[in-house]
């Protein structure tokens, strides 16, 4: 298994609101094999995004295990998680967090450069992805800061798919894309599966989910008080 989630629990403690403790996840458990795509489903607020953020180490697990690429994200040191994110675990979030002044090409090529890829081949891969995702060529040297929401999202997807991560997290990758670009993103996901990537995704787009997901995991099963 590439991704193994075991007895994962999470609660938020709001110290500045009387120390209220809000349990949000209890005993989450599922696996993802290489080449497999698992879709997280459940009503809004069931904890899909929370689970995704925990897998990436962005939210701290209260207890349980998240084993990805030989690292237990639930208890790893920051530098182990940083190394995991560099060469084993990718995350396409819903929004591009833009670094001021960095060109679109460099934004997309950065994950490749961080793994020691030669600048020429990183640049070639970045251009190829931007081309496929229909980002007009004259925008490539500009910072995506001023791009439209849809363009930023596609730059974000190009960045997320630039390096061939063995494990990949996708948060609504097809949301608000036109039919043509949606098709490109679905093809990218299928290619990633074909090369053996283990993928966890959130897709509100049902047709997209049926097409790329091999299985579904209902997060409501892990929501305290709902199960």
């Amino acid at each position, binding site marked *: 298994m590439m991704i193994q989630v075991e007895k994962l629990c999470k609660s938020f403690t709001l*110290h*500045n609101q009387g120390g209220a403790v809000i349990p949000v996840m209890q005993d989450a458990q599922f696996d993802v094999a290489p080449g497999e795509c698992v879709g997280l489903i459940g009503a809004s607020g069931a904890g899909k995004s929370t689970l995704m*953020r925990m897998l990436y180490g*962005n*939210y*701290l697990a209260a207890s349980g295990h998240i084993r990805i690429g030989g690292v237990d994200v639930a208890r790893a040191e*920051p530098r182990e998680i940083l190394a995991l994110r560099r060469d084993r675990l990718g995350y396409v979030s819903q929004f591009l967090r833009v*670094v001021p*002044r960095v060109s679109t090409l460099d934004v997309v090529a950065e994950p490749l450069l961080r793994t020691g890829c030669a600048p020429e081949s990183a640049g070639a891969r970045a251009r190829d992805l931007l081309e496929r995702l229909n980002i007009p060529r004259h925008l490539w040297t500009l910072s995506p800061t001023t791009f439209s929401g849809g363009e930023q999202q596609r730059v974000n997807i190009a960045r997320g798919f630039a390096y061939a991560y063995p494990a990949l997290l996708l948060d609504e990758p097809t949301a608000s894309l036109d039919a043509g670009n949606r098709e490109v993103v679905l093809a990218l996901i299928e290619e990633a599966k074909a090369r053996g990537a283990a993928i966890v995704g959130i897709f509100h787009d049902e047709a997209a989910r049926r097409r790329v997901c091999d299985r579904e995991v209902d997060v409501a099963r892990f929501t305290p008080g709902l199960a």
Partner: protein
Amino acid sequence: MTPLLQVEAVSKFYGARIGCTDVSFDLYPGEVMGIVGESGSGKSTLLNCLAGHLPPDAGAVRFDTRADGLRDTVTMNEPERRMLGRTDWAFVHQHARDGLRMNVSAGGNVGERLMAVGARHYGDIRNTATDWLGRVEIAADRIDDRPSAFSGGMQQRLQIARNLVTGPRLVFMDEPTGGLDVSVQARLLDLMRGLVREMGLSAIIVTHDLAVVRLLADRLMVMKDGHVVETGLTDQVLDDPQHGYTQLLVSSVLQV
């Protein structure tokens, strides 16, 4: 892997008052750590203890020296510590005038650090200085101007060039973007990100600006009243803060 810097139970007191107390962490090569906290939280005291500017009252600060591996810089003799300060360490001050010689030309400011480590050939020094001014985006024709004729942002970039020209392995930064315009800040941050990656630098950045650490730091340490209250991955500490003080700090940031 050997940590580049190993900090163990460092404490500094000002009489009965706590500067910082019982701070421990390891910093590995290529890592950038941010230290945040409000004024008076002890973050600058800690930075100065780590950089050898203030003697801690207790604890050890071990640095992985090129010659002898991990050595405690607190018990090291003064000439050795000064040598580290000129070679493997760099310190970027909040106020550029604390880190620059204001009555010496820009080229001289960069060249001086090179001469301190033995460079003697004028042409080489000037070429290296010109190259570094270019890297921090200062036009070559300003090389003979004094920093007093520079804008705040330019002075800060010059200070960075002066510090990095000798190829240090560890950079201490105290509020490096404090007091600069937002647009100037963005440029400086982008520049620092690039240099950190290209040179494989490790850095410790003290700031109260959470946006700065989100952009620059891999790891974050939150201080309050001289104590470390929380540490972790930068995005995890900012997006899922565990300690009440960090929660307050994060929720107090104005959204733009």
